[in-house]
């Protein structure tokens, strides 16, 4: 057991800090949340800078165009960029964290060469077409159909909760190719170009008031067979690779952000006098302990995946359960610090509080995560 960094890692951190200090002041102003083309351009610009500095796809394997960094170096990268207030992955999220790693793991050499470099350079954005109106937690029951017609699949159906659909170039799409097979065995993974005829994108407004995701309607959209990653009807297994990445290191930066927010909250409480309330003070103290432990759990999971050769383990589900709960508690504590001020949308943290309501739902609800943990880690029987 060791928490000290090697000289090489310290040097990596120092060089990254230096680069961030030089680069961040040169960034253009952030676009407004409703300006989707502006957001895309901003996120693409940041990714391009990362690419040129050698930080794009840090943890991707070398033969996928990545830097082959260790999980610890990736952790340092996420920690330092968040600490410095660097832009989020934003519209690059699906490409860098879902579709990209899936193509790197399961795609052919030609598919890797076609799709991975533009993701790393920030030239192409991806979105995710997994969930459907009737297939949420039970994702494998999805019904969007793909029928083979010559060199194409003809796809019809609808997808929901698709972030960045308005600005994406590609969609990683799950479709049903064999309706007669057991539900997990008739699914195929396709890369769908978002400019293909037959695609309609309808933005969905979240309870925070902004259009963060969309519904995507597919009406006989033609997707070339060569865009299929993995074998026909093997898409569920291919997808599980993606989802385990989603539950691995996806929240590292957010734990760092939570700890920063908590320190600001404590200072605000001290200034407005609410710090003298022992109940609130102890709540903030407890959150400090919990978030500190979650940071350590992240390091624990990273060193576990380091030992297992980079495959994220079920530790991700344990982490997500604890983290999503702690993050909601953090913003509830923020509301206690603000008092009635928490009713004003222009107060800091109020929009974040609204956004935090999605954390126990998105990327696998807490209930589904508990099933995963109970069945796969503890070995409890599946329910009937």
């Amino acid at each position, binding site marked *: 057991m060791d*928490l000290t960094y090697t000289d090489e890692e310290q040097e990596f951190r120092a060089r990254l800090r230096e680069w961030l200090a030089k680069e961040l002041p040169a960034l253009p102003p952030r676009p407004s949340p409703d300006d989707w083309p502006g957001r895309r351009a901003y996120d693409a610009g940041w990714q391009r800078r990362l690419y040129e500095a050698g930080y794009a796809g840090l943890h991707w394997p070398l033969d996928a165009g990545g830097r082959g960094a260790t999980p610890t170096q990736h952790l340092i990268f996420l920690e330092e960029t968040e600490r410095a207030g660097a832009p989020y992955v934003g519209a690059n999220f699906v490409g860098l964290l879902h579709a990209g790693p899936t193509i790197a793991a399961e795609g052919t050499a030609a598919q890797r060469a076609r799709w991975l470099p533009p993701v790393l350079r920030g030239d192409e954005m991806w979105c995710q077409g997994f969930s459907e109106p009737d297939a949420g937690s039970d994702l494998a029951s999805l019904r969007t159909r793909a029928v083979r017609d010559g060199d194409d699949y003809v796809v019809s159906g609808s997808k929901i909760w698709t972030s960045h659909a308005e600005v994406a170039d590609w969609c990683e799409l799950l479709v049903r190719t064999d309706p007669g097979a057991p539900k997990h065995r008739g699914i195929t993974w396709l890369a769908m170009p978002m400019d293909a005829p037959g695609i309609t994108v309808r933005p969905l407004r979240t309870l925070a008031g902004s259009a963060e995701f969309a519904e995507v309607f597919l009406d006989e959209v033609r997707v070339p067979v060569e865009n299929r990653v993995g074998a026909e009807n093997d898409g569920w297994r291919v997808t599980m690779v993606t989802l385990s990445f989603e539950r691995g290191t996806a929240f590292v930066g957010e734990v760092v952000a939570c700890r920063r927010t908590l320190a600001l909250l404590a200072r605000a409480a001290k200034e407005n006098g609410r710090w003298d309330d022992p109940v609130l003070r102890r709540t903030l103290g407890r959150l400090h302990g919990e978030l500190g*432990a979650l940071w350590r759990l992240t390091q624990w999971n990273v060193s576990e995946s380091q030992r297992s050769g980079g495959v994220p383990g079920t530790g991700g589900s344990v982490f997500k359960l604890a983290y999503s709960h702690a993050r909601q508690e953090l913003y509830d504590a923020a509301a206690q610090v603000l008092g009635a001020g928490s009713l004003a949308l222009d107060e800091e943290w109020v929009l974040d509080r609204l956004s935090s309501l999605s954390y126990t739902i998105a990327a696998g609800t807490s209930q589904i995560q508990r099933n995963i943990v*109970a069945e796969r880690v503890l070995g409890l029987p599946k329910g009937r």
Partner: protein
Amino acid sequence: MSGVDFQPTGEQRDLRAGVRDLLAGRYGREALRASVEAGVAVDRRLWRELGGAGFFALRLPEADGGVGLGLPEAVLVFEEAGRALLPGPLVATFLAAGVVPGAAAGTAVVTAFDLDGPLVAHLAEADAVLGAPALPEGEPVRSVDPLTPLHRVARPGRAGPYRDEGALLTAALQLGSALRTLELAVAHARRREQFGQPIGAFQAVKHLCAGMLVRAEVARTAVYAAALTGDGAEIAAAKLLADEAAVQGARDCLQVYGGMGFTWEADVHLHLKRAWVRAEQWRTAAQAEELLAADLLGADG
């Protein structure tokens, strides 16, 4: 291998497994229940055997007859003691090694003023109180935990400089107990059938068990990290989270056991009662949260 390796090394795993085997052989379930029925917490012979195995002298330098290991190894050893529900003032005697004669070898039993207020644990069985010049007089008090006898003393002393390490090792005991009650609950949920299926197939039961695992795993990383850094705030967090994992874990295990959980015969109540005792020792939840709050305000100015 490059990179931070937070996981226990092979040697550390071997140490933990060795202690688990030793305790399983020497203080298994039958021995535990025999000491409950006899009402005797400290078995002097076992105490000397633990001393002989290096349990109390783990951190003393080898030149002084110790094992020469550190806090990370100590928490792994105490985790196993907590799992086995090994009774007695283990933490105080461990901290007394090299300070109180006989503590390192297990020939002396040392307790401490680790509870707030007038109560002292294991006073009648102890040869010394850590940091106190003499054993105080005490009136026996009926204890909630059958294996933690209590006395009321007129002028209790203070845990003083031992508070941080005492809290950390106690957190490790709590962690072991939390992991054990999780195992007990899962084993019961797989075995016990109602409505034609194992009760562990019901999500209501499954989710209780998943919650136990999450609390135990978060506590584990907090305890291990605090052992590596020795940081006061991290130790407070470890104690806070491990207390909760142990107390709530035992409560949830009791619930999974149903009616059997409410009996004297099941071991669950022994875990719960000991977890309640440990939660009051060295650093309480209120103290830990206040310490963490002060640390939070101190950080970043």
